[in-house]
């Protein structure tokens, strides 16, 4: 299961000694197995919100519930894929992917079986023994996704994982991400600043307002999958997202 609820999440930052309200009471419910994208103007605190969902930061107000249970720390049922991958350069691709399994004490043979499955899914099998410095940015993100998937989390939290990719690699991964989602049925929350990316990936797109952020609008993207970025029928959804982003109004 993976129904994630954020209730009235608030977060302050210190800015020049004064508290600055970044999140002004964010409410968002993501149902089990749903793929939700979060977009918002830069600096709106969408990454901070994701980090709060992951338990990497504490909110100053509000609460996070997973399947009705209150959360207050990180947990292997909510795994984060970081913007730059955060892969460990001292480990091979295989050992990176197996890291979480090793930490939880799963024996090597079993680890290998599990990692083989996800290395194969992410088309990394032939790079299993490479080190990360030998990989392209796109390959690194594949490893990061595989490393998250082996943990078999209920919720996958993705923080602009494709932001640094060239457009060809990104288009490829956008399609793959949808296939992975359909295959694994994970709940996915995906933060991005790229509107077409949000329209391709999200079953719903939550638009954040400028600081102090709230969920301004939720747009259902009800369209067949797998979607591709150049599909003109997605244009209407993109327009809707863009216009709600634009009508922020100065605060």
């Amino acid at each position, binding site marked *: 299961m993976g129904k994630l609820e954020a209730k009235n999440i608030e977060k302050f930052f210190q800015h020049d000694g004064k508290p600055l309200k970044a999140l002004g009471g964010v409410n968002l419910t993501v149902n089990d197995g749903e793929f939700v994208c979060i977009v918002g103007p830069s600096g709106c605190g969408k990454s901070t919100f994701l980090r709060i969902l*992951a*338990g*990497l930061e504490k909110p100053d107000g509000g609460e996070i519930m997973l399947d009705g249970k209150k959360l207050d720390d*990180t*947990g*292997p049922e*909510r*795994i*984060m894929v*970081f913007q*730059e991958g*955060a892969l*460990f*350069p*001292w*480990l091979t691709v295989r050992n990176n992917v197996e*890291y*979480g399994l*090793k*930490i*939880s004490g799963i024996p090597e043979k079993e680890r290998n079986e599990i990692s083989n499955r996800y290395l194969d899914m992410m088309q990394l099998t032939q790079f299993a023994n490479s*080190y*990360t*410095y030998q990989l392209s940015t796109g390959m690194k993100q594949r490893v990061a996704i595989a*490393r998250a998937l082996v*943990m078999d989390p209920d919720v996958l939290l993705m923080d602009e994982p494709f932001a640094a990719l060239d457009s060809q690699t990104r288009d490829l991964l956008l399609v793959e991400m949808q296939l992975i989602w359909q295959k694994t049925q994970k709940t996915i929350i995906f933060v991005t600043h790229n509107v077409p990316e949000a329209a391709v990936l999200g079953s719903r797109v939550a638009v954040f307002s400028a600081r102090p952020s709230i969920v301004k609008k939720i747009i259902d993207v009800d369209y067949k999958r797998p979607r591709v970025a150049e599909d003109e029928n997605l244009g209407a959804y993109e327009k809707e997202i863009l216009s709600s982003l634009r009508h922020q109004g100065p605060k």
Partner: protein
Amino acid sequence: MKANLFGKKIAFYIAIIIVWQAIDSADIWPDNIFPSPIEVGEDLIYGISDGSLFYGIGTSMWRLIVGLAIAIGGGMILGIFMARVETVNQTIGSLVLGLQSIPSVAWVPLAILWFGLTDAGIIFVTAIGAVFAVTINVYTGVKNIDPSYIEAARNMGAKGSQLITTVLIPAAFPYMITGFKQGWAFAWRGVIGAELLFSFLGLGFLLNVGRQLNDVSQVIAMMLVIMGIGILIDGFVFKRLEDKVMSRWGLR
């Protein structure tokens, strides 16, 4: 390219020996003040043939290794604690900076009083001369770890000592190597300095024997050995380790 560089170096050292020999042949200073390279070479060969040189090297090396191992172990523990626990940094951290400024030979009198003329005293000087350089580099290394490594590991369930052994140490390793290298340099100076003053076996002792016997060529021969070992360890142990780590960690 590489062969060219090597050739340059060889030519340079041959040139030094030729100039040295030329100065000696000019007979400006008497031989007991300024020996020829041949005399120094003879002393080295003599030391090799009767085994005393190897015994001296062996003694100094094992003291160095034990002292450096203690320094690396202690420095890593201290450095990690300083980096992760702010109170430790604010208290012990300032003391470490102060102690780091004490030259290792300045610990010799204390070591003699505490340990007497023993190996333990020399190892103490070696270790204490190196430990703070290791500590400071380990501290810097752990402080500079990309926080997303730690977050990713925590997110996947790593805690406490697991976090230290599987992320903090490997992530800080490039800095730690610098610390080990500095530590080794301090330890090597420390062990030779201590042996000179303790006058209890080892290369520093052989160096001092040369002085006591007024044997300048023996003194220079031992200095060359000390330098040679320094070059070897720097070039073969640390340079290789550093190259490997830097490329693996994607820093080069």
